[in-house]
């Protein structure tokens, strides 16, 4: 029983921390130190959870309130969710570190860190919950905190971008509620394990397919997959740097997590159709995201479009649907989170040193001349994004291609192989403009800006995971082995 309490800790610690951070909102040093301490403790708790789940050999389940499984709300940690929670919390710690060293006015607002910790709570909760309606509630918590943080951004278009995102998110939450309703009326349960078992037993209910479509739409909005991507570049580019680094790296992975759960637990018999949709959406995302990233005039926007492409790669891997390619999707998601967070922080750092605070190319061109350290970091980050050794991007790309050769969808492998070149094109172009070209007249570099500690930490992890990839790959292998048999999850939750 005490082991099972570990499941709730990564949700509970940031939630309690957020409330206490609100009490200390006017004592800045205390609030800052408290937030960092809470995030570090929460990250350690998530590592302990991962180790406990791995050692336990089957998912850990916490039945909240002591209610037995199909009736109460269960929090479930299998290898997939434990690994995703670790990913979220590691990146969020670096986000807090960046925010502490940031010169933006937004980080001085009393409630900034409260909302930041709420963002962590919401994201961790959606990943750990085993109940569809609870997933909706946590997703709303996530959306509200992310939107508030963007609406108060230093960027003067923050409010518009936040409005755009919140509007589409409210629509997405209506999709989710309708999905909850249709699935509840068809199968009489909201527990994901119970629902998975019931759908497997009877896949002929008339409202099943509308339910699947609505749930798919919800997760596609969350991960900015292609027909629902239009809010994402605006929103991620306008958010304050520490927040946009989180949104574009870990928050979009919520959708990825949802797709993995849908295809391996909830709708196993219906999975081939879902996978085909994801495959098509993924390939379009890779091509569209890559081309758009080449065409933008703003570094942060370029990286936001690049997220579209990278999430596209993950969707393609889920779409192939073999055990190897699901493992690839997990590794790719983990690695991309670290890379994209680091790259966005570096873009924000460059913008903070530019004469006007902006990441537009005509303002940051040449700004990098006096910043060699950031240049090296950005260059290594670019290599990682494009998948060149010795970085973890190489590990995920090579896994992606080797799992693609084993699948039957050669056209998609060919397309994403060709469009991978785009990544190198746009990152190197940004590098060249910021660090090689001479600055235009009137453009100068400010003597001080944001702190580089967080991207340095992330880049160390990126290179370390590139050279010593086996722990992550082994964990992902274990996770995909568990996912290949839905009864592992179902039995752990329902018992027997």
């Amino acid at each position, binding site marked *: 029983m005490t082991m099972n309490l570990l499941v709730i800790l990564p949700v509970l610690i940031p939630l309690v921390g957020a409330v206490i951070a609100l009490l200390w909102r006017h004592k800045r040093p205390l609030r800052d130190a408290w937030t960092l301490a809470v995030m570090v403790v929460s990250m350690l708790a998530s590592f302990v959870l991962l180790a406990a789940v791995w050692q336990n050999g089957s998912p850990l389940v916490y039945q909240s309130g002591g209610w037995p499984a199909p009736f109460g709300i269960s929090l479930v940690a299998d290898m997939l969710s434990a690994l995703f929670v670790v990913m979220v919390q590691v990146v969020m710690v670096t986000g807090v570190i960046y925010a502490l060293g940031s010169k933006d006015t937004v980080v001085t607002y009393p409630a900034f860190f409260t909302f930041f910790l709420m963002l962590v709570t919401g994201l961790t909760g959606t990943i750990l919950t085993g109940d569809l309606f609870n997933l909706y509630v946590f997703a709303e918590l996530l959306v509200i905190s992310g939107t508030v943080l963007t609406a108060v951004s230093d960027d003067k278009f923050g*409010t518009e971008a936040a409005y755009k995102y919140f509007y589409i998110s409210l629509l997405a939450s209506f999709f989710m509620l309708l999905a909850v309703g249709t699935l509840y009326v068809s199968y009489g349960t909201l527990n994901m394990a119970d629902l998975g078992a019931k759908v497997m037993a009877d896949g002929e209910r008339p409202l099943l397919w509308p339910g699947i479509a609505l749930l798919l739409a919800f997760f596609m909005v969350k991960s900015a997959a292609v027909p629902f991507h239009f809010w994402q570049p605006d929103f991620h580019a306008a958010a304050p740097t520490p927040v946009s680094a989180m949104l574009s790296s870990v928050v979009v992975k919520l959708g990825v997590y949802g797709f993995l759960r849908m295809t391996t637990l909830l709708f196993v018999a219906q999975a081939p159709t879902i996978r085909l949709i994801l495959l098509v959406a993924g390939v379009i995302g890779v091509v569209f995201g890559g081309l758009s990233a080449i065409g933008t005039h703003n570094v942060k926007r370029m990286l936001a479009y690049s997220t579209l492409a990278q999430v596209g790669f993950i969707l393609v891997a889920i779409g192939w649907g073999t055990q190897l390619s699901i493992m690839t999707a997990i590794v790719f998601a983990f690695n991309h989170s670290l890379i994209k967070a680091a790259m966005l922080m570096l873009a924000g750092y460059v913008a903070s040193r530019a004469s006007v605070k902006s990441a537009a190319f005509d303002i940051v061109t040449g700004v990098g001349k006096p910043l060699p350290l950031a240049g090296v970091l950005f260059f290594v980050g670019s290599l990682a994004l494009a998948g060149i050794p010795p970085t973890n991007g190489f590990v995920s790309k090579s896994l992606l291609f080797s799992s693609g050769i084993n699948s039957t969808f050669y056209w998609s492998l060919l397309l994403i192989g060709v469009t991978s070149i785009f990544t190198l094109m746009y990152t190197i172009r940004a590098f060249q403009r910021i660090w090689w070209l001479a600055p235009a007249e009137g453009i100068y570099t400010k003597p001080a800006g944001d702190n580089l500690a967080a991207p340095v930490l992330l880049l160390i992890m990126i290179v370390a995971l590139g050279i010593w990839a086996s722990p992550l790959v082994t964990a992902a292998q274990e996770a995909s082995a568990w996912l290949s048999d839905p009864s592992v999850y179902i039995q752990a939750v329902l018992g027997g």
Partner: protein
Amino acid sequence: MELLTAVSIGLLFATGIFQLLRRNVIRSAMGLMILANGVNLFLLTTGAYDGTSAAYTTEAGVHSDALPQALILTAIVISMGGTAFVLSMLYIISARYQTADMDEVDNLKH
């Protein structure tokens, strides 16, 4: 009763989606609110909703399913918070641009 609920859900959805697609931001926010009510009413119909006595009692008569009603309660609270937030953002945007026409709020394009 069933026909009445079905027709009202349909009407709420139709009005909500129509208003959602208008260019006026206030109208589209109204569309969201109407749609929220349509969704909540739909959730209500997913359980038995025309019971005659209180749920979880030993009273005689037909009981209603209490779960969808609890879901609606949560959804109402969340959508109320969301609506308040949408309106406050709209206030800032319309004050900045001096217009409620979405086509004129186009600075994000650049």
